[in-house]
């Protein structure tokens, strides 16, 4: 391979207004982190209640299960396009103009899209974790006089939370990975920045190596934080005892 390596390119001024290419790439990484954090927050806020709902019979349960099937069986890119191209058309006139003209429109719509997509995955994980807790726990709590809400609050959810730490680690990494899809609606996240740097500077491999290393670093930070959470919750033994009961995961 005769490729002209030029690592000092990162200190050259970038044409997009950033001082250097390094700053441009780092700004992309920051955008990726912002997208990931907000998407994860939406995914948890929507996915955890939905995971509880999906175990119920009747309308609520069916609705939660339908939500999961809907969001899991349409490609994320197609969902992103629905949020970006289709949703604004269905909004009232004033809101439509606001969404279309705001420079942050794509970022917000993309984050919402990724959040609601990931919520379906979190829902399935929460449901699997709750199903992995033996029925005796529920029966014992009810026999002790706890109401259903209290049973979830004090017995089932704390146990499910501990079971969920390892799967949540890979879900958060998935959210970071999936956030790259947002570049298709024009958000300058990490992959888009690397692509832009490659187009401006022609230093293909330096750009993509930088992006790769930054993604690996972000993943490393997630793993470190989640491991700390696992140690703090202090239930290694609890998890390994129930590991065999855990449901399969997908994706």
């Amino acid at each position: 391979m005769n490729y002209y390596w030029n690592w000092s390119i990162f200190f050259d001024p970038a044409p997009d207004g950033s001082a250097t290419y390094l700053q441009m790439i780092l700004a992309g990484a920051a955008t990726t982190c912002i997208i990931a954090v907000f998407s994860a927050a939406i995914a948890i806020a929507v996915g955890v209640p939905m995971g509880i709902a999906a175990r119920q019979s009747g309308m609520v349960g069916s609705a939660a299960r339908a939500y999961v099937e809907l969001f899991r069986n349409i490609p994320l890119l197609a969902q992103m396009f629905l949020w970006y191209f289709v949703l604004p058309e269905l909004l009232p006139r004033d809101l439509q103009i606001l969404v279309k003209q705001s420079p942050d429109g794509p970022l917000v719509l993309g984050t919402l899209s990724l959040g609601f997509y990931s919520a379906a995955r979190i829902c399935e994980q929460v449901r699997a974790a709750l199903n992995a807790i033996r029925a005796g726990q529920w029966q014992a709590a009810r026999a002790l006089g706890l109401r259903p809400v209290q049973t979830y609050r004090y017995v089932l959810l704390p146990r499910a939370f501990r079971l969920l730490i390892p799967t949540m680690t890979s879900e958060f990494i998935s959210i970071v990975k999936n956030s790259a899809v947002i570049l298709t609606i024009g958000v300058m996240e990490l992959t888009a920045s690397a692509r832009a740097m490659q187009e401006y500077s022609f230093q293909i491999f330096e750009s993509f190596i930088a992006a790769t290393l930054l993604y690996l670093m972000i993943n490393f930070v997630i793993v470190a934080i989640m491991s700390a959470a696992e140690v703090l919750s202090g239930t290694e033994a609890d998890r390994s005892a129930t590991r065999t009961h855990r449901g399969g995961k997908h994706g």
Partner: protein
Amino acid sequence: MVDFDFGVIIRSAGYLFYEGMAFTLFLTFFAGTLGFALGILLAVLRSSSYRPVRWLAATYVNTIRSLPLVLVIFWFFFLVPFVTQWVVGSPRPVAVGAVWSALITFTLFEAAYFCEIIRSGINGIPRGQIEASSALGFRPVQRFLLIILPQAVRNMTPVILTQLIILFQDTSLVYVVSLTDFLGAAGKIGQRDGRLVEMYLFSAAVYFVICYAASILVRRLSERNTISLARVGS
């Protein structure tokens, strides 16, 4: 509000399915098959007795699995011409075309995921099987190909098929290197006729119907699998 014109779908159905969906299925089928074969190879390499081989395979699998598919598509889109140049010994990078580049990318990307699926399938096989086949005088290669791999693949069939459904959805990302798959075809027609709303709603509906039907089949299959395995066990 918008006025819908769903006639645009009927007018463009030929292009959507014969061009767009045909490419989506082409990519899913070939990247799925080749990726599966390569995944088996990677799984073997990951359990090699040579530490450097093991380490290289593990690094490849773990790196690919921690990167966004979009970034990997870009990586190979630019890397493949350089590697081809190096292999063929041509004076400059060889333009291989986006289709080949996409096929290579998805094959290599899926291989990492299939590798882990097959490995967990292998790990799920009781030790007795390995000991029994050794006792019966099978050589290591025979033991792997005739005893371990078939059982691992059968046990993991639902997961493998689910991974194929994910691949089918992921092929839509060829959009970033300007290839026209089903979603891309819908987008092109939508742009041309100013009917993006109808086209994107329709393509999402088609993906949903196909993936939902496929996932129900996989669920049935895995239920049948579990029942027949339980029967064998009792």
